[in-house]
């Protein structure tokens, strides 16, 4: 029974991880940019939800609707004005650029919000739901459903829409896509915008479970990294599988080895996967 409960906890966590990783993986796969800012975008999304709820009374689940367009615009503008200038440079240079931007963003958040850990607590709480012997908090359950929904939506956009096809085409063959009339730099900006949107929108969801602080950004970034390697780079299904797998592994890891070793376990997993199956569980095929 305990096993089932831990599995359920892991899947709830994993759904959120999938959402974190899908945007990071998309940007890495299409632009070949390792976006160090991703973790800080998530934290910023968390603060947006925290203050929208505290000051304006907007429910955190609804604040996703505010976060999505804002973060898309932020990402689009950042790619359009800054990162596109260096997009042809080796991956280490764009990594350095996003690292520098992340230092600025995370320090700006430290100055503005301080390093205090804040907790978003719903009032009144949504209570719990029992499925047989498994008990799950309703807020976490909704957060997971929304996270998986957002990730699924991203998949639909990429596989069914005109702009999604263009993004996938650019990932597969940039020059051939240009020959089809795709404006590659614009697709880069849209892709970075979508990646930022996914980070910003997962912020409010994670704020339902984890405390919010600028110091948590790197932890989220690390998770996104592990999930990308686990699931396979640049694909939404890969991020989904990798995210759920990591959530389950971390939950059982906390049970067996103690919660302090959950992160250690995830990086041990990362090293094992790199040794055994470096292309990820799903490999790098098909739609992003």
């Amino acid at each position, binding site marked *: 029974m305990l096993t089932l409960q831990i599995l359920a906890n892991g899947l709830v966590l994993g759904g959120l991880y999938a959402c974190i990783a899908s945007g990071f993986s998309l940007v890495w796969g299409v632009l070949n940019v390792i976006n160090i800012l991703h973790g800080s975008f998530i934290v910023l999304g968390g603060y947006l939800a925290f203050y929208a709820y505290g000051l304006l009374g907007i429910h955190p689940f609804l604040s996703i609707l505010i976060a999505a367009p804002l973060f898309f615009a932020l990402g689009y503008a950042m790619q359009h004005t800054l990162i596109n200038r260096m997009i042809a440079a080796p991956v280490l240079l764009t990594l350095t650029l996003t690292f520098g931007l992340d230092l600025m963003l995370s320090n700006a958040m430290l100055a503005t919000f301080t390093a205090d850990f804040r907790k978003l607590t719903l009032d009144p709480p949504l209570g719990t739901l029992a499925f047989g012997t498994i008990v799950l908090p309703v807020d976490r359950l909704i957060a997971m459903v929304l996270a998986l929904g957002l990730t699924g939506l991203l998949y639909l956009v990429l596989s069914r829409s*005109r702009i999604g*096809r263009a993004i996938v085409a650019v990932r597969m063959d940039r020059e*051939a896509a*240009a*020959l089809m*009339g795709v*404006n590659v730099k614009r697709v880069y900006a849209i892709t970075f915008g979508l990646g930022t949107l996914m980070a910003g929108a997962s912020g409010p969801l994670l704020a339902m479970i984890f405390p919010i602080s600028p110091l948590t950004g790197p932890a989220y970034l690390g998770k996104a990294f592990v999930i990308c390697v686990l699931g396979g780079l640049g694909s939404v299904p890969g991020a989904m599988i990798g995210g759920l797998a990591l959530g389950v592994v971390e939950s059982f890891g906390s049970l067996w080895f103690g919660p302090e070793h959950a992160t250690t376990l995830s990086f041990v997993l990362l090293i094992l996967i790199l040794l055994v199956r470096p292309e990820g569980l799903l490999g790098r*095929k098909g739609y992003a």
Partner: protein
Amino acid sequence: MDEPLLRISGVHAGYGDVPVLWGIDLEVARGEIACLVGSNGAGKTTLMRTISGLLAATRGSVRFDGRELAGAPPEQTLASGIAQVPEGRRLFSAMSIRDNLLMGAYLRTDTGVAADLERMYALFPILGERRHQHAGTLSGGEQQMCAIARGLMSAPRMLLIDELSLGLAPAIVDQLCDTLRELNRAGLTLLVVEQDVAIALELAQRAFVMDTGRITRAGDAGTLANDPAIREAYLGAL
């Protein structure tokens, strides 16, 4: 005579500091099949990339239907009516055949795209049968069909094909040439880059021979096919 549909004059281009094209002049008339032949490294693909706008000409002019295209980005070249089937076909291999064809129609906003998809499936039935399969699962000849169909999906007035026959079985090449003639009769202008000079001169009405970044011979394809120098250099004549 009318102004040619495509007129390239004095085009220079290259990669970084390395010049590849040295003043190319080339004209293709409306409704014509022209071919560009020459050995490996002659600069044929570089010229194709310059026409499509993937590579910017450092000097010279590329005029299509009276409009200057030199320096224009690829989407503008395509929008003005020149589509390209790139060397090596460059299909989006993990995308379905249907999605590859839809990528060809990426710039189109008219309502004829669905009808054109059906036209392509009629032109190349194998593509229709396998429309939901990944393009990477097709054989070489089928991939070339898919690449040509993808180029046609932009509803171009002129189609450039870079290396039509490379790596394909002779029977498939014959079939592709028949299809191209059919498309040409329906009004499409073609410029075909081809390493196999015999195939090229048989398909085309006009031919250009390229060597080390220059056009060394140009003229009627039939005349060139009977030219002793061409026969000796490229056709292995007796």
